[in-house]
């Protein structure tokens, strides 16, 4: 397991991922190097303005990927994932990855996700970070193959790189 919970009575000044539980402070510390792939239990960052996503990010409980809808089990750009967010299961589309990319494809500093419903229409109305242009082609292809309309995600993007 990549996480180890340290229980310390003394409050720690570290602001990252600290939650107060019964008078004790729990600190989550990674003991293994970060795996930049989107696999099951990878934490993601919601970048649209959906209410659910915003609340989850503000609380410091980012969604976790619990399934990747492809055959490899590793999410690549434009892939659909199932996430656990605030006790619910939601679907989302990966719109930016930390992983190394091919030349000319942007690599982001965080793993970005846009929440969608089962029909492929996004829950939010705006994406507030740039998304890669290659999503245009990928999502169009997926729309043809799967039947759900994923191109609505493109429509709410504010900027492309």
């Amino acid at each position, binding site marked *: 397991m990549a996480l180890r919970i340290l229980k310390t009575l003394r409050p720690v000044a570290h602001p990252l991922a600290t939650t107060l539980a019964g008078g004790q402070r729990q600190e989550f510390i*990674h003991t293994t190097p970060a795996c930049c792939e989107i696999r099951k239990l990878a934490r993601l960052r919601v970048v649209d303005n959906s209410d659910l996503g915003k609340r989850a990010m503000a609380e410091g409980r980012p969604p976790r990927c619990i399934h990747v809808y492809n055959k490899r089990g590793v999410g690549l750009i434009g892939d659909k994932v199932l996430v656990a967010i605030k006790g619910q299961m939601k679907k989302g589309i990966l719109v*930016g990855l930390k992983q190394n990319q091919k030349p000319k494809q942007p*690599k982001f500093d*965080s793993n970005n996700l846009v929440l969608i419903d089962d029909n492929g229409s996004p829950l939010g109305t705006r994406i507030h*970070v740039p998304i890669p242009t290659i999503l*245009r082609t990928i999502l169009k292809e997926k729309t043809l193959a799967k039947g759900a309309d994923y191109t609505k995600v493109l429509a709410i993007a*504010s900027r492309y790189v």
Partner: protein
Amino acid sequence: MNLSTRVMLNRLAPQCAYKRIVTFSTKTAEHAVENQEESKKGVAPAPTPSSPAPVTRKPIIPANYRFVYPEFLPDPKVEWRNPIREKLERLDMLERRKQIDLPEFYVGSVLAVTSSDPHAAGKTSRFVGICINRDRCGLRARFVLRNVIDHQGMEVVYELYDPTIQKVEVLRLEKRLDDSLFYLRDALPEYSTFDENMEAEPLEEGASVPVNDIKVVLRPRPWLERWERQNLRGVANIDEYLKDKHRLSAAKVQKPWEKYDMMKDYRSSIPEEEQTEIFAEVHTDLHTLELQRKRNKRKRTFVKPKQLA
């Protein structure tokens, strides 16, 4: 023997202190010659006429070519060397350079790359960012641009000789204190934020490339790499986040003897004779391209004076 080695080491120590081993790092002519002379003085004060001083030809090729065009030097890894392929690649690189202006830039320079993109709306995309790394040799030469757009850090790898690249502009030509700036990923975002509509800041003609000695401020741990082990010069506050255990483990993996390892230096660099050979081959073409660029620049900077009154 003992004296000469000591002299050699004394000469070597200061120059190795600033020189780090890069893929395309190379030995300079002066050091080699100096060393030879120094050792001669130590061993045989009266030089014999049978071994004349090394013949130094007139330097037709500018000494800074190995920094301006590092990708023309092949990878020093012996297993990967192939003189014919390297030669063919150099020809292809020159052909490409005749089609597109690939300017001089360094790690730390701010670039704007326009490339054709079948997915983009206007079929082209432009990315502005600071060059944080340059690697690979020959036609495979790459560089990485980094920028923070809408509070989102992003990086794009470009291949220098990619035929889909339409334009490479250098917006700010400068160097930084380190050979690669991957630590910008762990620095505060303002250090890698560059305006997309930034104007090019032209340098005076003939001026040397300035070194920007800015020290970036890292954000607290966790970091992507163990920066304390890399002897970075462009980081201001690394000590703030280090505990004794970090310092100890960093001291353990240091290899202070490596700067005296001449064999390692030899293996990780292209010898000077070979460099002159390579650059002699491409010099004329590169020189004409440079002249052409200068002419074009002057044409572009000339603005017809407006008639007043």
